[in-house]
């Protein structure tokens, strides 16, 4: 059994340790005897529908985001949307999350168009939200990460947030929401890296991939004691510094 993990724009958008998410997905497959292949899909590379099982898209610096926004328009963005409609799991963080919405509006210069997978828009803000973040998600329970963004994301009426902010600022610092959910796609502002300390979320993505590729709905448990300790210690830090 084999899963292909597609890392979108990994060479130009890989900030704040987002690579840890890809490592988490790959290792948690391997520890269960599932072969995991990591494929980087960069600027100019076409996205073949059906070739990949899990998508990851991380954050980047503003300068790099301009090229990526242009690259993802047209056939590539359409293929990615079709994949999500077909049930493919995806995790996006920060810059990737923003470009999966309708647009990112910088402080100066033209809007960077997204692909509108999430009914969400993002505008550059004046304040940078930096700190540990704890989110309560109905589906995944308590999630913990580190946010570092000045973009303010507002969800449209059709969008469902990933969860509610318990500590931190989340989408926009005002409405208490964090992230976005659509089918098996997740967008959020949580670096950390997110998945290693939130193995439940990792396993949700792997499970969705197995269901789609192999019609398999079982996933053997792993010993997550180190992960659970790290999760608890990060939540402790978030609460202590609130």
């Amino acid at each position: 059994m084999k899963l292909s993990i597609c890392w979108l724009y990994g060479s130009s958008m890989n900030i704040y340790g987002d690579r840890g998410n890809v490592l988490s997905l790959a290792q948690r497959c391997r520890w269960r005897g599932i072969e995991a292949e990591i494929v980087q899909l960069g600027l100019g590379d076409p996205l073949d529908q059906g070739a990949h099982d899990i998508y990851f898209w991380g954050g980047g610096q503003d300068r790099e985001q301009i090229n990526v926004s242009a690259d993802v328009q047209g056939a590539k963005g359409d293929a990615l949307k079709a994949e999500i409609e077909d049930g493919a799991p995806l995790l996006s963080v920060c810059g990737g999350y923003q470009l999966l919405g309708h647009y990112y509006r910088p402080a100066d210069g033209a809007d960077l168009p997204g692909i509108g997978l999430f009914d969400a828009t993002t505008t550059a803000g004046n304040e940078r939200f930096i700190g540990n973040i704890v989110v309560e998600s109905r589906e995944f329970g308590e999630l913990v990460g580190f946010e570092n963004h000045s973009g303010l994301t507002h969800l449209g009426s059709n969008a469902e947030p990933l969860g509610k902010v318990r500590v931190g600022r989340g989408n926009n610092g005002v409405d208490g929401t964090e992230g976005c959910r659509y089918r098996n796609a997740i967008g959020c502002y949580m670096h950390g890296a997110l998945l290693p300390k939130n193995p439940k979320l990792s396993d949700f993505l792997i499970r969705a991939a197995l269901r789609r590729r192999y019609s398999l709905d079982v996933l053997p448990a792993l010993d997550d004691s180190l992960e659970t300790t790290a999760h608890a210690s990060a939540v402790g830090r978030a609460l202590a510094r609130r």
Partner: protein
Amino acid sequence: MSASSRLDVRLAAGVAAGKLSGRAIRLLGRGGGTAAPGLIANLIEPNILNKLTGKVRDGRIVVAGTNGKTTTSRMLADILERADLRVIHNRSGSNLVRGISAAFAAQSSWSGQPRGDIAVIESDEAAFPDVVRRVNPRIILLLNLFRDQLDRYGELDTIATRWRESFETLRPDQLLLVNGDDPALAAITEDLAAQRRLFGIQESRYLLDELPHAVDSALCRRCGAPLRYSQLFLSHLGEYVCDSCGFRRPPLDFAASDIDLHGLDSVSLRLAHDESILDLSLAIPGLYNAYNAIAAAGAALALGVGPALIAETLGAFRSAFGRIERVSYRGRQLVIVLVKNPVGFDEVLRMLAVGGLSDPALIVINDLDADGRDVSWLWDVNVEQLANGSSPIYTSGIRGADMAVRLKYAGIATERIHPLKALANSFEQFVDTIPEGGSGYILPTYTAMLELRRMLAHRGVVADFWEQ
């Protein structure tokens, strides 16, 4: 009474406040007293730094960069002292405006006359434009721009842009001495009124196969296209060209070759400048120290110091505060190496892996302000280098649990990973795991190292750093 000799009362009061509060803090046992006195002195005389530095006869050299600025500025200060200059230097590494002010107050007379001919000033990246504005440097030495504490500094682009704005204020009599192997630094120092000279590595047998994970400058700053590297030495430092717009590494004025790494012990290299050749043999290890030595030697040559004196001083140079230290404790050798960002951590692991890590190691990760509150940088470190060994790896610190998870996902067998309690309660336990007569490694972040230093000092092992 001439204007120049009239007592500046406000300046004298600021200097006095800086001196006295520094002493008081040390007497009270509240640490080295390296920054708070500067804060107080600046409250009394906001221009204290401008005024004191302006009186230094042979000018100011500002050293900046993500990695190596403490080591490089110490190397340079040592060389200048050996050349019989009296050097004012913020030696403790306290490198914000207040820390630099405190160092100057401590090294000035009560009337505000600095006791030095020349100043070597290490500057923090974020404080750099303000420091440059205040001290009017003769030479600016730029080492590198790596990813470091992004939660504090914001994105690397922001720093680069602010530095560029600062460079545009420089005059033709000011010199920028720049690491040409860093494409970001090369790009932001182009076309300025100030002079520019470049140092770098011309040839090395220690090449990386691919860009490491933590790299931020793989794109051309001029046109945004990916850079192509013909040689890659360390992180994004190398020989590069942009196939799209033609931007490339500029010719080097100070070029290193024949680099030889000897594990955790030493490194040697040959530095060419104009007609002269310097053979440098350092007693500290690693490619990053080779860069530090090239930078310090370049600045000293630019100041007219003789090559023989430079080589001799650098050969005798020992590690700055805690970068790499060996201490003997309870019959064991402890090798303590500071880790503070992905590039530095990567290089430390490269040195351990080259030597075939067989001794126990303790990694201590804190997330206080001085460490960076965001520990996600651990995921940018190539911890996978340690996966082939069999030695135990212990973790501790406020975020030791994050490090344990990082080790696990690097493919290190969980039997080798041992999370320990807080350092105060687990240090002796770690020492116990090292056989008598054996050695162990301790890799702490900045505040963890301060804590470790205090613990060792308490046990009578090492001198406190502000006494060095």
